[in-house]
C-alpha cells in the first residue's frame, strides 16, 4: 500500500492521480511508439528466423539420418537375405546330392520292375483256340454224293467227336485264362512298388520345387534391396519393429528366469562372501556376487553360441579358424557346466540354510518340530538343484534374442529419431510462423494503449492535409487485414 501511495500525486484523490499517471504514461508510450514497434518487430523476426533456421537444420539432419538409416538397413537386410539364400541353396544342394545319388539305383529298380512286368505281360498274351477239326470232317462229309446211313452215322460220330473236342477246348481255354489271371495277380506287387517309387520321387520333386520357390522369393527380396525399393525398405523396417517386439518379449521372459536364478543363489552366496558385507549403501556383496555369477553364465552362453556360429555379435570369433573356434566352444561349454554345477550345489545349500533357520525359529517360538515325510521334504530340494543346473543352460540361449534385439534396435531407434526430429522441425516451423504473425499482434496491442494520442495525431493530420490521409487509412487497414 505504501508503494502504491508513493506513486500517487495526490494520495487523497486516487482516481485523479491514476488518471494523470495514465496520461503521462500514454504520452511516453506514444513518444516511444516507433522504437517499441521496431523492438517488437526485430525480436519477433529474430525468433522467427532462428526457429525456421533450426527447423530447416532439423529437417536436413533428419534426411541425412534417414539416408544413413536406409543404407544401414539395406546393408543389413542384404546381408541377412544373402545368408538365407545361401542356406536355401545349401539345402537344395543337400537334397540334390542325397536324392540324386539314389536316382540311379531307383532307375535300375524301376527298369527291373518294368522288364519283369513286360515278361509277365507277354506270358499272359491271348492264345487263340485251336481250329475245330470237325470243320474239315464236315467238308469231307459234304462231298459225299449218295445219302444213306453211312453219312448219318458218320455225322453222328463227328457230332460226338466235336462235342468231346469242344469240351476239351473250352476246358483248356479256361485253364489258360486262369493261368494268365494268376500271372496278372502276381504282377500287382510290382505295380505297387513302381507306384510307391513314383510317389517318393514326386514328394522329393515337390520339396525341391518348394525350395526353389523360396529361393525365388528371397532372390526377389534381394533384388528389391539392391534396387533400394521403397516397398522393400518399408518391409525391412516393419520387420525390425516386429523383431524388436518379439526379442524384447523373449528377453523379458529370460529376465524372469534370471530373477528366479538370482533368488536361488543370493542366500547361499551370503554364506560364502558374508551376509553383512555391503558394497554400497543398499547393495549387499552377496547379492552382487550372485548377479555376477548369473552374468558370467550369460556371457559363457553367449560365447558358446558365438563359437557355434548361431549368433554373430563378435566378428573376431566368427572369423576364427575352425580349430580355435572349437577350442573356444569346448572351453565355454566347460565353464558353463562348472557354473551350473556350482549353482546346483548353491541351491542345495540354500535349502539347508532355510531348513536350519526354520528349525531355529521353531526353537525360539517353542513349537514342536513338524513331522517330516522324507520324500516330500526332499522334492523341493531336488527341484531346486535341478533348476540350479538347468537354468544356466537355458539362460545361455538369451544370446539369440539379444542379438536380434540389438540389430533391430538400431533400425527402430533410428526411425524414431528421424520421426522425432521431423516432428520437432514441424513444431519449430509452426512457432516461427506464429512469431512472425505475433509481431503485428503485439504492435496493434501496443497501439491500443495509446489510442487517444493516435486519434489526436490522425485528427491533426486530417486538419493539416485534408481528406487524403483519411483515404490512406482504409488502405492501411486493408493491408493489415491482408497481413
Amino acid at each position, binding site marked *: 500500500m505504501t508503494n502504491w501511495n508513493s506513486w500517487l500525486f495526490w494520495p487523497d484523490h486516487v482516481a485523479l492521480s491514476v488518471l494523470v499517471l495514465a496520461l503521462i504514461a500514454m504520452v511516453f508510450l506514444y513518444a516511444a511508439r516507433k522504437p517499441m514497434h521496431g523492438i517488437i518487430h526485430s525480436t519477433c523476426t529474430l525468433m522467427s528466423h532462428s526457429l525456421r533456421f533450426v527447423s530447416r537444420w532439423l529437417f536436413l539432419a533428419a534426411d541425412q539420418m534417414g539416408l544413413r538409416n536406409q543404407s544401414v538397413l539395406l546393408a543389413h537386410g542384404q546381408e541377412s537375405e544373402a545368408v538365407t539364400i545361401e542356406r536355401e541353396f545349401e539345402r537344395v544342394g543337400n537334397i540334390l546330392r542325397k536324392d540324386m545319388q539314389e536316382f540311379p539305383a531307383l532307375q535300375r529298380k524301376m527298369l527291373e520292375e518294368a522288364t519283369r512286368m513286360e515278361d509277365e505281360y507277354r506270358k499272359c498274351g491271348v492264345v487263340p483256340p485251336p481250329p475245330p477239326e470237325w470243320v474239315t470232317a464236315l467238308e469231307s462229309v459234304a462231298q459225299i454224293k449218295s445219302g444213306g446211313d453211312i453219312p448219318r452215322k458218320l455225322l453222328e460220330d463227328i457230332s460226338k467227336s466235336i462235342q468231346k473236342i469242344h469240351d476239351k477246348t473250352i476246358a483248356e481255354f479256361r485253364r489258360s485264362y486262369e493261368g494268365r489271371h494268376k500271372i496278372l495277380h502276381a504282377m500287382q506287387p510290382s505295380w505297387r512298388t513302381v507306384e510307391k517309387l513314383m510317389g517318393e520321387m514326386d514328394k522329393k520333386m515337390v520339396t525341391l520345387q518348394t525350395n526353389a520357390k523360396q529361393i525365388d522369393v528371397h532372390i526377389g527380396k534381394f533384388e528389391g534391396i539392391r534396387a533400394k525399393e521403397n516397398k522393400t525398405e518399408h518391409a525391412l523396417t516393419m520387420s525390425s519393429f516386429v523383431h524388436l517386439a518379439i526379442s524384447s518379449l523373449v528377453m523379458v521372459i529370460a529376465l524372469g528366469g534370471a530373477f528366479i536364478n538370482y533368488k536361488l543363489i543370493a*542366500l547361499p552366496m*551370503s*554364506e560364502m562372501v*558374508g*551376509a*553383512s*558385507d*555391503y*558394497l*554400497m*549403501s543398499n547393495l549387499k*556383496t552377496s547379492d552382487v556376487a550372485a548377479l555376477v555369477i548369473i552374468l558370467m553364465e550369460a556371457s559363457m552362453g553367449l560365447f558358446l553360441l558365438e563359437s557355434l556360429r548361431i549368433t554373430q555379435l563378435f566378428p573376431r570369433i566368427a572369423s576364427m579358424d575352425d580349430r580355435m573356434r572349437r577350442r573356444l566352444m569346448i572351453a565355454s561349454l566347460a565353464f558353463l557346466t562348472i557354473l551350473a554345477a556350482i549353482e546346483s550345489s548353491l541351491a542345495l545349500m540354500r535349502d*539347508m*540354510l532355510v531348513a*536350519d*533357520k526354520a528349525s*531355529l*525359529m521353531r*526353537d*525360539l*517360538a517353542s513349537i514342536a518340530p513338524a513331522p517330516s515325510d522324507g520324500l516330500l521334504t526332499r522334492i523341493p530340494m531336488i527341484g531346486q538343484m535341478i533348476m540350479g543346473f538347468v537354468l544356466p543352460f537355458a539362460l545361455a540361449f538369451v544370446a539369440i534374442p539379444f542379438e536380434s534385439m540389438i540389430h533391430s534396435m538400431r533400425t527402430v531407434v533410428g526411425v524414431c529419431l528421424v520421426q522425432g526430429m521431423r516432428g520437432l522441425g514441424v513444431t519449430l516451423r509452426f512457432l516461427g510462423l506464429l512469431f512472425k504473425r505475433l509481431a503485428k499482434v503485439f504492435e496493434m496491442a501496443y497501439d491500443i494503449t495509446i489510442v487517444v494520442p493516435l486519434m489526436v495525431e490522425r485528427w491533426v493530420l486530417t486538419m493539416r492535409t485534408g481528406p487524403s490521409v483519411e483515404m490512406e487509412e482504409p488502405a492501411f487497414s486493408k493491408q493489415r487485414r491482408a497481413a
Partner: protein
Amino acid sequence: MKKSLMILALSFGMVSSGACSDNRMHSHGVYMLVDTSGTYAHEMGKAAKIVNYLLATLNPGDSLAVAKVESRSFTEKDIVAKVTFDKRPSQATSQKRVFKDKIHTFAKEIKGSAYTDITGGLIQGAEYLNETKSGIKTIVIFSDMQEELGKGTIRDFPISLDGFRVVALNVTKLGTDNADPRLYLDRLARWEARVRKAGATEWVVVNDLEHNLESILTTR
C-alpha cells in the same frame, strides 16, 4: 585400452573402499537391560520372549547383549550374554541357539536386587554398543523406569547417548501411579527429556508386547 583398464581399476577401487567403510554402517547393535528388582523379577518370562524375538529378527553381523539392572549396573559383570553374530548365516544360527540357552538358564536362576540403577545400565550399554561400532544402536530397557539408587551411588550427571535409540519396554504402572497417573506420565516424560538431552535420536515406549514388538528395531 590402457585408459579403459585404468577406469575399470579405479572404479573397482572406489567400490572396494566404499565397501570397507560401509560394512558396519548397516549392522544393528542392541543392548537389552532387564530390571530384576522387586516384582519385576517375575516378568522374566516376558523378557525371554523379547530376547527370542530379537534373536529371530537380527541378522548376521548384528550384535546383541542382555544385561541385568541391579543396585549398581555400570559393570560388565551384569552382562548376562553378549554376541556379535558371524557373517555366515549358518554360524549366526548356531550362535543364536547358544545365546537362547544362556538366557534360558539366566531366567531360571534370577535373583531380585534391592535397588534399580537404570542410568548405570544405560552408560554400560552405550559403552558396549560404541565398541561394536554398529550403524544403528538401540538400548532396550525392560523396566518400570522407577530408578532407585542405593546409598553412595552417584548418577546425577549428564550422560552421552549420541545417535542411540532408547526403547522402554513393558513400563508397568506402580500402585502409586494408579492413585495419581501424573506420577507415571511425569516419570516417562522425565526419562524422555533425559535421554534426548543425552543425544538420543529416538525415544520409544512399547507396552503392547503382543502386537508392537517390531517398534523395538524399526527406526521411525
